[in-house]
């Protein structure tokens, strides 16, 4: 019940922020910030005070919705979704903070869209009725597209359209797979069901499940994203406003990984196992190809976007290694990448506000005038290339250790990504902050220090004391 209220409250807060901005200028951001902080606290209190530890999926509410198809409104939580929702709250607050001065037009509507997206994302992480899941999947998509299309950069219409079409086409396949699995449930038990725990009990022969799995896999691989269906991401990330990029890289990509875990691997273990070599190949290609593409970019945000593809490759590789070390590595990588890419995109936004360019050739020598920013940039670039002591290292190391036990050859190629990431990380940091000073910029202000500082602290905390995350079993 509480979770439903939280989602409704987000919707309500979004609506009232929209209304309020028309009457009192500058109230929307405060409203959004307060609402997010409050609801995050409510969520935290709810989880802490719950009597169980969420090691298994806990169904929180089940209400019949469309009776003729046996579709329900049912939501549940487990440790995996709790961790991802916590990440969502953190980054949502960061999103409001980075938008503080950046968004100048249609401010109220912007925050409405932002809060709606977050409500959709939380819905995706809690829904256990597949039809409901699909519903939230769409809820999350529409306002996100609006954010890109309305508040984005010069080429925003195109990027938004591309993002929308990629996601739509792939989620159509997922819809087919959902209906197919529901229909199979009807065949096997005599009753139509879209209820995830019901599905877990199904015994689907491999000949059918491999197609069903494939439908889900495509949808989530597009979202993750994986080569060769990744190309919406560089455009969307580059063109989105800063908060849009943060949300996309930090949380939206994670819904893809979440889907892979819950609806591909746990639902179709046999089919996934059979599919693992192909998935691992895609993962390794993503890692190496993403790193190589990142190196070729001139655009700060585009570079970070391609680096995301490389990092998500590690997640995919780890997930299809089917052992607990790799699985933990995948989850740590999800959180770590969420924080570090959010940090890098925030930095890109801060630089853009100062020099009105994302082009690396316009940057150089910023360290001189903005040493604090330089320090953070180095730390976040370090996180991206897997510097030990920061969270991403733990994630990558666990992923590699786990994957190596199953597929050493793939893992060795994946490890070459470490060289690739060092190359693009160095290029990113050095061309923007070192070299001759092209222009002077203002160093970080208090609000920006707060954003960067908190992100770095979290990265350090997980990197040095990963037990924070690893104490959860995540349903293994």
């Amino acid at each position, binding site marked *: 019940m509480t979770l439903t209220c939280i989602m409704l409250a987000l919707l309500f807060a979004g609506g009232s922020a929209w209304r309020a901005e028309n009457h009192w200028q500058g109230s929307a951001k405060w409203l959004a910030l307060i609402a997010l902080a409050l609801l995050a606290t409510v969520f935290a209190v709810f989880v802490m005070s719950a009597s169980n530890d969420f090691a298994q999926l806990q169904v929180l509410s089940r209400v019949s919705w469309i009776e003729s198809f046996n579709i329900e409104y049912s939501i549940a939580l487990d440790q995996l979704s709790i961790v991802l929702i916590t990440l969502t709250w953190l980054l949502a607050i960061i999103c409001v903070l980075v938008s503080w001065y950046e968004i100048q037009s249609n401010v109220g509507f912007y925050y409405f869209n932002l809060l709606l997206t977050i409500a959709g994302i939380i819905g995706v992480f809690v829904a256990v009725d597949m039809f409901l899941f699909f519903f939230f999947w769409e809820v999350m998509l529409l306002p996100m597209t609006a954010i890109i299309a309305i508040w984005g950069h010069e080429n925003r219409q195109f990027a938004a359209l591309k993002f929308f079409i990629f996601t739509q086409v792939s989620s159509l396949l997922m819809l087919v797979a959902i209906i197919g699995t529901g229909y199979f449930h009807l065949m096997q038990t005599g009753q139509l069901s879209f209820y995830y725990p019901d599905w877990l009990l199904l015994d689907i022969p491999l000949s059918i499940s491999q197609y069903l799995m494939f439908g889900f896999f495509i949808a989530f691989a597009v979202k993750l994203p994986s080569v060769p269906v990744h190309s919406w991401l560089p455009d969307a990330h580059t063109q989105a406003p800063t908060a849009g990029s943060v949300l996309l890289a930090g949380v939206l990509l994670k819904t893809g990984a979440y889907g892979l875990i819950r609806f591909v691997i746990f639902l179709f273990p046999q089919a996934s196992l059979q599919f693992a070599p192909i998935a691992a190949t895609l993962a390794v290609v993503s890692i190496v190809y993403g790193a190589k593409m990142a190196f070729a970019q001139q655009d700060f945000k585009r570079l970070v976007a391609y680096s995301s593809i490389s990092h998500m490759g590690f997640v995919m590789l780890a997930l299809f290694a089917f052992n607990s070390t790799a699985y933990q590595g995948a989850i740590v990588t999800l959180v770590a990448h969420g924080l570090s890419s959010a940090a890098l995109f925030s930095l890109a936004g801060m630089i853009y506000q100062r020099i009105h360019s994302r082009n690396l050739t316009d940057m150089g*020598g910023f360290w001189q005038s903005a040493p604090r920013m330089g320090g953070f940039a180095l730390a976040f670039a370090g996180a991206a290339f897997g510097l030990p002591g920061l969270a991403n290292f733990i994630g990558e190391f666990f992923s590699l250790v786990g994957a190596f*036990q199953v597929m050493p050859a793939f893992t060795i190629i994946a490890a070459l990504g470490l060289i690739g990431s060092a190359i693009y990380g160095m290029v990113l940091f050095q061309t923007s902050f070192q070299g001759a000073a092209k222009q002077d910029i203002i160093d970080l202000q208090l609000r920006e220090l707060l954003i960067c500082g908190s992100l770095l602290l979290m990265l350090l905390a997980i990197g040095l004391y990963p037990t924070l995350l690893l104490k959860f079993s995540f349903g293994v």
Partner: protein
Amino acid sequence: MNVLLASLPFYPFVSFLLLIFFGKRLSWRLAATISVSSMAISALVSAILLFELSVTKNQVMTANLWHWFELSYAMGSSDVNVRFYLDGLSAVMISVVTGVGFLIHLFAAIYMKSDVNFSRFMAYMNLFIVAMLILVLADNLVLLYLGWEGVGLCSFLLIGFWYQEQSNVLAARKAFIVTRIGDTSMAIGLLLLFNSFGQLNIEAVTLLAEQANSLSAGTNAESADNIYWIALLLLGGAVGKSAQLPLQTWLPDAMAGPTPVSALIHAATMVTAGVYLIARMHGIFLLAPEVMNYVAWLGALTLLLAGIAALAQTDIKRVLAYSTMSQIGYMMLALGAGAWTAGVFHLMTHAFFKALLFLTAGAVIYALHHQQNLFKMGGLLKKLPFESSLFIIGLICLMALPGTSGFFSKEAIIAQLWSSDTAGPMLWWCAILGALLTSIYSCRLFFLGFLGKARFNENVQLKKSSLLRTSLIILALLSLFGGLIPLDLTLVFSSVMNLPLAQLTEPTWLHTVAIITPFIGMVFSWFYFKSYRISHLAGKEHILQPNNGRFVVFCRQGLGFDGLYKKLFIMPYQWLAQINKNDIFDQIIMLNAWYVGLWHDALVLVQNGSLRWYLAAFGLAIMLLLGVSLL
């Protein structure tokens, strides 16, 4: 749990934090005091630890800081902790790191005084010490890897300390990426190691390896194969960090950093991390004699290559850089030959005299208004007698003249090569040839820089600071008498005793040859480099030109490795990046959009609103349909 041991890296770390957070507000006096005194405390604590260690039973101390994480594998799981482990080997390392580190900090505090970013510089130096201490104290390979990457990062920051200069930026990038290639090899080695042993704890791995060694008849081919690969991959990491073949190219460029950095990181401590790694993992390497043989050969080849390259340099710091490379080659050669203690001993003495050489060179460069070109020096013996005499001390240690510290360590290495299983007479001759080259390039360096007539016009500027001189004098004393420090690592390398002794008998002339080799080099140089000694012999007075023949230039550029790698790796990668800038996958997917657009255009053409056109199309279609159905 030893609190002193646990606290060791935290003194420089606190100093780092203070300098980073309050850097701009601190005066030179305050910043220097904070950073140097933190190093003094660490050195003191190391000394106490050394004493405590010598009285503890079995000479091992540990300190567990916190539980880092737990790795599981098929048969169980193993803990990876942030835990420090101090034994004889790491004790040598922490003494060098904190002791020499302290002296270099002291020097740097005065040397870098006028730099606007002084506090940032000292902060990086402190951070480097933190990472280096973690590296040498780590009780497991993951923590070691943390230190390993940490020193790499600090090295990157300090090479590029004067980051406004594009060439420094590129040198820093090169150093980071080239060592990262080695690091990746090491990381893969860790994966394989964990997969084979289920452990990343160094002590446990060494123990397991020793057990495997004692039952060596019973080990199957697969595990032997694994150990071979583990050793080889770890060696990859070591050659990257220690600038050995084939990843040696970054070190000469790393001289772009301020001179104290070259002394601390690129001579005394970080570059010897590879040597430390191999010595630390000797349990594994002993099981893979082939790899030990590769280690010896890589060391010997680097030793010769760097010696030849050093002969052709014109920049005083680059001579020293190549000399460092070649001395680390000696250490590698020693490790490869199984002369573990001798290798570590040379690591220590080399840290003393190379730090001395670099710092003195720094003082000279400063005195000559940042002139690094040897051909624009000359006659410094008269103008800078104090620095010159220290430099001479450094050089005689480098050449290993009898009585100096370099002599003891280098002789110890050479003495064990001939009859070693994994080395042998060939490598012995390489070492001798290397010693000859060392003495020749040292003499050339000395003649060019310090003898003859001054080839510069400005007056020398001097930093008359007693602190600066004190640090140099202490280093000089260590260089001269450091060879007398007793180094007993038998407990660390106890397993070595099991090695079967080779049956080769040593000829009696071995030692004589080894001792007189440097003198032969000196005599040779005395005559061959006559024009360097006596400037007016060089034709026109005062003008001395470096030989710019093609071969000399080839040697000066490090025997063509840079060009080779550029063609083999850098250019293809850049080409690949350039050619696929628009992402081929995106292009293919966007073909769909193009295809839809094509139909859009075609259909727009049809929907033109002209009735005549519609009628004609209608009629045509009916005719076609009729025609088809009739046929």
